[in-house]
């Protein structure tokens, strides 16, 4: 396997989206989005349906026109350049292979449009198919390939034209879990090997955190936070990010002088510069631990285990505190000590947390 042919003359380029806005009738799909991808970087845009992540990708691809803002690739403003002249490789969600062409013909098609000679086309198609591990399936048609294989051919087809940028529009969402995980790693391997600047759009947080150099979490056309996966997970900038990425316990508490008192435990705040008063603390399950299983008096953090979800090496324990349910995540060996029905005391680790305040009810004017 070699990447020389596919990476030839194609060092990653910088991509900049500047104040991109896109409206559909009265809905603003993208609101002044600004995002820079460093050369060779893989950035994942993560968010729920309708957050604007696919719109951002389509504007970068040139498949849609922005109402305002600029798209700059390798220092050139391509905002008004049509999609077929941007030299961008794209992998779609599914079903994008041309069904009347074999895998090889699909891969060669872009080169054919670039007037690459038949011999060179064939050689390069073999290289990229080899790169994605499908050289042996070159003569198969889409309906003869599995979903994962089809997406690998689509990746090979996108890379065969030696694009400046690679766009991946939820390429794994139509696949089953096992294939998804394997292909995710495969995409990352190929991307690193080729060194191409890549934008990956997904609604799957696990996928985004696993594959990307940086993750951008989007909501309502805005970029809520952009950072490395560890930062997104452990230091979410907004309550939305905290709730969207990973699981979060919402426990009522009281803010006092830059900390929040949660059921008798004082926890520092990520942003201590807030007014005192009631608030909901957003606490990660892994910041919740179980105290020893013995005789214990009632207290605000004493409850009963009602369920244990086995996740492999880790388990998630659901504890009923009477007025609220709290999730705790711990090693399976520890979780197995507290079967359902066991009375336990929770301890909250004092990691800085975000808080959320109830919105005041709207009043009639």
């Amino acid at each position: 396997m070699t990447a020389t042919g596919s990476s030839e003359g194609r060092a990653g380029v910088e991509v900049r989206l500047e104040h991109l806005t896109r409206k559909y009738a009265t809905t603003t799909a993208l609101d002044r989005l600004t995002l820079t991808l460093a050369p060779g970087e893989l950035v994942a845009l993560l968010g729920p349906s309708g957050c604007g992540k696919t719109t951002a990708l389509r504007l970068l691809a040139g498949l849609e026109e922005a109402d305002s803002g600029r798209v700059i690739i390798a220092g050139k403003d391509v905002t008004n350049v049509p999609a077929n002249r941007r030299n961008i490789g794209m992998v779609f969600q599914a079903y994008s292979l041309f069904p009347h062409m074999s895998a090889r013909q699909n891969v060669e098609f872009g080169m054919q449009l670039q007037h690459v000679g038949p011999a060179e086309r064939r050689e390069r198609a073999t290289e990229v198919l080899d790169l994605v591990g499908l050289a042996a399936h070159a003569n198969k048609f889409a309906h003869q390939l599995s979903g994962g294989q089809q997406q690998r051919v689509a990746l090979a087809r996108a890379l065969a034209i030696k694009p400046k940028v690679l766009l991946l529009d939820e390429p794994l969402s139509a696949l089953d879990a096992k294939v998804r995980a394997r292909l995710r790693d495969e995409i990352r391997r190929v991307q690193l090997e080729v060194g191409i600047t890549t934008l990956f759009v997904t609604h799957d947080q696990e996928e985004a955190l696993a594959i990307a150099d940086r993750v951008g979490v989007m909501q309502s056309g805005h970029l809520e936070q952009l950072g490395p996966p560890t930062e997104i997970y452990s230091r979410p900038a907004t309550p939305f990010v905290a709730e969207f990425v990973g699981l979060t316990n919402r426990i009522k508490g009281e803010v006092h002088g830059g900390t929040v008192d949660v059921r008798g435990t004082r926890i520092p705040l990520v942003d201590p510069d807030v007014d005192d008063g009631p608030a909901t603390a957003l606490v990660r399950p892994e910041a919740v631990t179980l105290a020893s299983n013995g005789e214990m008096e009632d207290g605000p953090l004493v409850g009963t285990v009602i369920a244990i979800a086995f996740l492999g090496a880790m388990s998630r324990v659901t504890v009923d505190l009477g007025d609220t349910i709290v999730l705790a995540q711990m090693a399976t060996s520890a979780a197995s000590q507290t079967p359902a029905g066991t009375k336990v005391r929770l301890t909250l680790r004092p990691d800085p947390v975000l808080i959320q305040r109830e919105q005041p009810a709207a009043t009639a004017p």
Partner: protein
Amino acid sequence: MTAASSPALSSAARPLEGGRRPTLSWVGVVPFFLYVGVFLLLPTAIIVGGSLLTPSGSLSFANFEGINKPYMFKAFASSIAISAVSAVVGAFVGALLAYAVVTGKPDGILRRTVMSGAGVLAQFGGVTLTFAFIATLGTVGFVYVFLLQHGIDIYARGVWLYDQAGLTLIYLYFQIPLMVLVFAPALDGIRPQWREATDSLGGGTWHYWRYIAGPLLFPSFLGCTLLLFANAFSAYATASALLTQGGVILPLQIQFLLTSETGSSQPGYAKALALAMIVIVLVVMTLYTLLQRRTAHWLR
């Protein structure tokens, strides 16, 4: 209560001795096969049998010799020409209309209206359709009179409505809607991702139609055109109502041979012609099926 504790339930669930339980699911298709048997297979068998019998009842191919007669050959040629022209024109116009419809909203009012209308108009034929054309485009039809009053004489070179050209025009009235109905599913099978993939690979509209959509749709288009050909080739009532003299097309020749007012009816000869028509339609429909099958896994 479990099944194990209830002998009645247990025995009901157990297969009959020696193998699988008999199923009655085939009963559902009996009406269909009865219908096909009575209205398709039985008449076909009568035609095949009758075409091979002489008036005296002996087996012979003599009935088929008449097909070579010049006037019969001409009727064959006219039938094929009218069917081919109405199929090709109907296919192109219908395909364009179907494309316009499927590129709109999938559940939009335009699509629902056009598809419903096509469903009705594709079945609109016979005396009613012929009368509609005579009342509008006939020599005293209101459209003809209106055009004439405005200086446009569509019959300046002779009245063509009651000729092959007129019959072709009338056939188009149901051929175009039929094409919309049968070709729209193929167009629906074209995925927007293919267009966008072509764009991202550096192609334009021409490349998309030349290399992607065209090759994908062509077998289905050809198949639908053949279906339209068969539809026109086997049409009888419309032509019968429009053309009162002469056997311009094959079905009318068969009619004359079966219902001669001069006592010279030749049922064996008529059945031989009908068998020839069946063979042609069978070939066309086989080609249609093969072409549809070819695109089925592309455009599903």
